[in-house]
């Protein structure tokens, strides 16, 4: 997988987190905080896994930390 595709995959995964979080909170926010929180945590975990398995693996050797 080339770097551009890996980058697009990573960006898409985290953009999906933002979209899902907004949809959940805007449509069901305030009803039950636990039920709102868990799906957001789940999509964050999925985006993190995609980042680890796809983006991080392709972009090996990048500078860690700031």
């Amino acid at each position: 997988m080339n770097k551009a595709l890996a980058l697009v995959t990573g960006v898409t995964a985290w953009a999906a987190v933002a979209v899902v979080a907004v949809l959940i909170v805007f449509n069901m926010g305030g009803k039950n905080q636990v039920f709102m929180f868990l799906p957001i945590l789940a999509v964050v975990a999925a985006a993190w896994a995609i980042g680890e398995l796809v983006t991080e693996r392709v972009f090996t050797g990048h500078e860690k930390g700031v």
Partner: protein
Amino acid sequence: MALLQRTFEKRDLRDPSLIRAIFSNTWLAPLWLLARLYLGYQWLLAGSHKVWGEGRWIAVGGPDGLPLRSFWERAIAIPEQGRPAITYDWYRDFLTFMVNHEWYRWFSWVIALGETTVGILLIVGAFAGLAALAGAFMNFNFMLAGSASINPVLFVIALLILFGWKTAGWIGVDRWLLPALGTPWQPGPVFRRVLKGRVANEACPVCQMPVDPARSPASAYNGLIYLSCCPVCKERLDAQPARYIVGLGPAIPVPAEG
């Protein structure tokens, strides 16, 4: 003079290992993720009520921000008995000025979109430190206006995330964003590409070894990028830039190296 020199001498005071483990080590990234998600969720929820639904603050039929005007008017009111909501007169004057000039019309947009943006940035972990700082600033203002609610709790969480800005977004976009952008004192690859024509040296200023424009540690002085061959040389350069960069300023006298 010697007293002033000794007082303002450059000293690097290191944090204890426990503090570094909490705020600068990625092993606690899952804990920071939970704090970040909770804070982000609260801000997104608060913002959603202001931009969406029946009671929204903005994009309504009439003038925007009427609920904000009501909030400000309640805050600046001085009751005949008991204590007013606002303790500081300068803050009451500030809110009164905004009410009188109908600033609630555009300020409601700032608050509604600001809260929503802070919530999204915290949830995805992009610029988590800056987002936490913006959130803390909003909490601070709500508290100054006499509104306690959950603001003190959110304020403390935001401050903790602010202290842990380097690792708070590790499980998030910051993991790639921060190293790519770097900092003003250590530009990352993105800024190096933008500032490619402003790299000032081809050899390390400290040891004269060749540098690699793509990978060598970078420092920024006087609007120019200076590349060092290794982190050790970069540390020496940053400690005494005037010693290694000609024309940067008066050289700082240092003892000869062994």
